[in-house]
Every structure is written in C-alpha cells, then in structure tokens.
C-alpha cells in the first residue's frame, strides 16, 4: 500500500517540480544577471509556469510536411515517460519507495538509456538539417557519457555489494559515497549534466548554432513536452546524484550520532533531508547554467572519451582492488 502512496506523491511531485524548476531557473537567472526575472503573473510571478503551459497548449501544432508524422508524434513522449518511470526505484526515505526490485540499478540504467531514442527519433523525423545535426550530436553525446556514468555507478556498487538502490542508499548511513569515492562522484555529476543536456553540455540544442537542435521543428505542446522532460531530467538527475553519492536520505555521518527516532518522525526527517539535497542540486544545475559557457562538440567528445572514461575505469579498478585486498588480505 505504501508504495502506491509514494507512487502518487512522487509523480505529482515530479511533474510539479518541473514547473517549479522552470520558475526557479528564470528567477535565479534574473538574480545572477542582476535583473528581476518573471514577476508579473501572480504574486512574485509564481504563476508564470502555469501561464507558459496554457500558452503552449493554445498554440498551433505543426508537423513538417516532409517529416514522418508518426515518429514525429511519439518522439516527445519518450523523454517524459523515461523521466517519470525512473522514480520507480528511487528511495525517498527509509522504506519509502515505489518498487523494491532486486536489480534496480540495471532498471535505472536501462530506462535512462532509453531516453536517447526520443532525441534521435525527433531529430530524424523532422526532416530538417538543424534537427538532424542536433539529434546526431545529442545521441553521440548521451551514449558517450553513459559509459563514465555507468562506471561511476559501478564503483559505488562496490561499497554496497548489491544491485539494489535501496542497499546503496542504506550503505551510506555513516560514510557518504562522495567521501569514500570522490572521483567517482565528480565523474557522475559531470556525466549527469551531459545526460540531461544542460550547460555546459547544451550544444546539442544551442539556439545560436542549431536553432534549438532536435526540437527545431516542434511547436505547441509537443515542444512543451521536450521542455517539461528536460526539467524533469534535471530533477531526476539531482535525485540520482543525491542517492548515489550524497547519502540519499541520510544526514552526514548519521549512523554515528543520530539516535533512534519514532517512525513518523524518522520518515519526515528522511523525506525532508532527501528533498533538501535534491533542491540543492537543482539549484546547482541552474547555477552552473548561468555561470559557465558552452563547450564545443570536440571538447565534449574529448572530455567524455579521453578523460572521464579512462579516469572512471581507473577509479573503478583502484577501488575494487583496495576493497578486495582489505577484505581478503594479500594472499
């Protein structure tokens, strides 16, 4: 029963958090650039995202005549679906999860790698050169950064000894993975940025060069779905960074000092700790976007293949060897 409550709450949270993230992005951008940002619709401009969605819905939905209508239509569904399906395995607190499957890390990676289809299909089905280029770049970038991401996750699993995310979260009660495995954490965060195509990796949808890349030919709510999915992915990736490296729902070194709490209290604490960390990383995503410039495609590929991937492999081997020999001795 619990899992269905979590399911309902988390989906509602995810969809609305995307809207909140859009609003936050524009307000923070305003603050960083020393201007106001949206402040007209509702108090402090809080209803701006709602107005945006209504505007998008009321716009005309155009499919380019030379494109593939069917593929063009299903493409925006995929990123939204993958974003929402990811929450199935994220633990929001001790015992607060949607599904307790035993290989949830594999599920997570499988769903995450499905996301690339939406982008590629969108780029291909539009029959526009900008879209095709954007789609190609996006798919190359996303599959390239999936590898260091996967290796970083694998180096986390070495501590947990399990493919279940719940165990990964539980294993960080005292020592967060970012302390035990700092390099893996950095690699994971960079890869998560690339996977969600945020600055500095947003060259695949660069307005100035590619007119928006793969969603050049999308309008109305179909474009809105890509937009929604991008912010959902920001939130999801923040959750994953939190879960894998920043102690999930645990306070720092909680195992060492936190006394036994009653169940409702513990639940409230867990959820608020988790959400606080997630909010921080959403803020971090936005912060980086308005601070750092954009990479070129060559830089992106170089960083992924010749820096992050070798580093993540070496990191994995070193951690595995250390843990193995600590456990079994040097025999």
């Amino acid at each position, binding site marked *: 029963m619990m*899992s269905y409550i979590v399911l309902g709450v988390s989906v509602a949270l995810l969809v609305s958090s995307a809207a909140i993230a859009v609003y936050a992005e524009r307000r923070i951008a305003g603050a960083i650039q020393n201007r106001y940002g949206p402040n007209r619709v509702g108090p402090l401009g809080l209803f701006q995202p709602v107005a945006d969605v209504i505007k998008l819905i009321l716009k005309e939905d155009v499919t380019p005549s030379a494109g593939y209508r069917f593929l063009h239509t299903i493409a925006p569904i995929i990123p939204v679906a993958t974003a929402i399906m990811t929450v199935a395995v994220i633990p929001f607190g001790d015992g607060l999860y949607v599904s307790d499957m035993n290989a949830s890390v594999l599920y997570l990676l499988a769903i995450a790698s499905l996301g690339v289809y939406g982008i590629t299909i969108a780029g291909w089905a539009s029959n526009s050169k900008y879209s095709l280029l954007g789609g190609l770049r996006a798919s190359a970038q996303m599959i390239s950064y999936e590898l260091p991401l996967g290796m970083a996750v694998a180096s986390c699993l070495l501590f947990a000894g399990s493919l279940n995310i719940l165990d990964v979260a539980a294993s960080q009660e005292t020592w967060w993975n970012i302390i035990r495995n700092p390099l893996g954490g950095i690699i994971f965060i960079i890869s998560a940025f690339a996977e969600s195509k945020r600055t500095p990796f947003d060259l695949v949808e660069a307005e100035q060069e590619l007119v928006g890349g793969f969603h050049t030919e999308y309008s*109305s709510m179909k474009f809105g779905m890509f937009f929604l999915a991008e912010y959902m992915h920001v939130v999801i990736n923040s959750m994953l960074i939190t879960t894998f490296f920043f102690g999930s729902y645990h306070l720092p070194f909680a195992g060492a000092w936190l006394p036994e709490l009653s169940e409702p209290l513990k639940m409230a604490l867990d959820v608020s700790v988790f959400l606080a960390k997630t909010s921080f990383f959403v803020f971090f995503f936005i912060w980086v976007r308005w601070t750092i410039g954009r990479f070129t495609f060559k830089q992106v590929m170089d960083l992924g293949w010749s820096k992050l991937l070798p580093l993540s*492999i070496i990191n994995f081997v070193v951690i595995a060897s250390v843990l193995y020999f600590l456990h079994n001795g040097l025999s």
Partner: protein
Amino acid sequence: MLETYLPVVLLAAISLTIALIFMTLSRVMGPYRPNKVKLTPYESGMDPIGEAKERYSISYYLVAMEFIVFDLEVMFLYPWVVRYLDLGFATFAAVIVFITVLFLGLLYTLKKGTLDFGSQTKVKPLWD
C-alpha cells in the same frame, strides 16, 4: 512479483497518459491552419536545399561502435560487483585482465584519433 512490478507498469501507464493528454489538449484547443510555407522545414528563412537526410561524418558510427564495446564491459562488471569479495583471487584477476584489455583498446583508439571530431587531417602512413 506483482507487488514489485505492478507499480512500474502503473508508472508507465501514468506517464503515457500524461503525455497523451497534453498532446491531445494542444490539438483540440490550439488552432490548425496549415499552409505550404508553414510546413516546410526551417532553414533560417531560406527555401530548404535538398533533403535533410544527408550523409554524415563516419565518426558518429565509430562512437556508436565504441559505445557498444564499453557498454558491454560495464554490463559485464555489474554482476561481478555484487559478489566480488567472495569469488576468490582467480575471478578477481580475470576481471582485472578483462578490464585491462579493454582499457588498452580504448588507449589505442584514442591515440589513433578515432574519436577525434575536430581535426580534418588525414592519417599519415606510419612507415615508408
């Protein structure tokens, strides 16, 4: 079994429903007045030149091939990671050798410039 996977199926259904509702809403509530110019692909305001499906750089194919190799490597490591402490030194050594061989392959492709998107210089023959 059902307890584990029913929520996942439910999530998939919910996400599809949300997506479909949004798209139907915009179809129903938005205007629909297509014309020829509106339906042509955007090419900075010019008439589109040729088909969009042109040949593209072979580097993308190479990236895809490399991806398959290393994605499989990662996938092979996952099951080992779960039980690696109890499997003994032979298994440990085998996995390290496996990683090393693939790592050498990565080093080789990087050194050969297979994944180099920037430079257009032809690879020169090594020996004369």
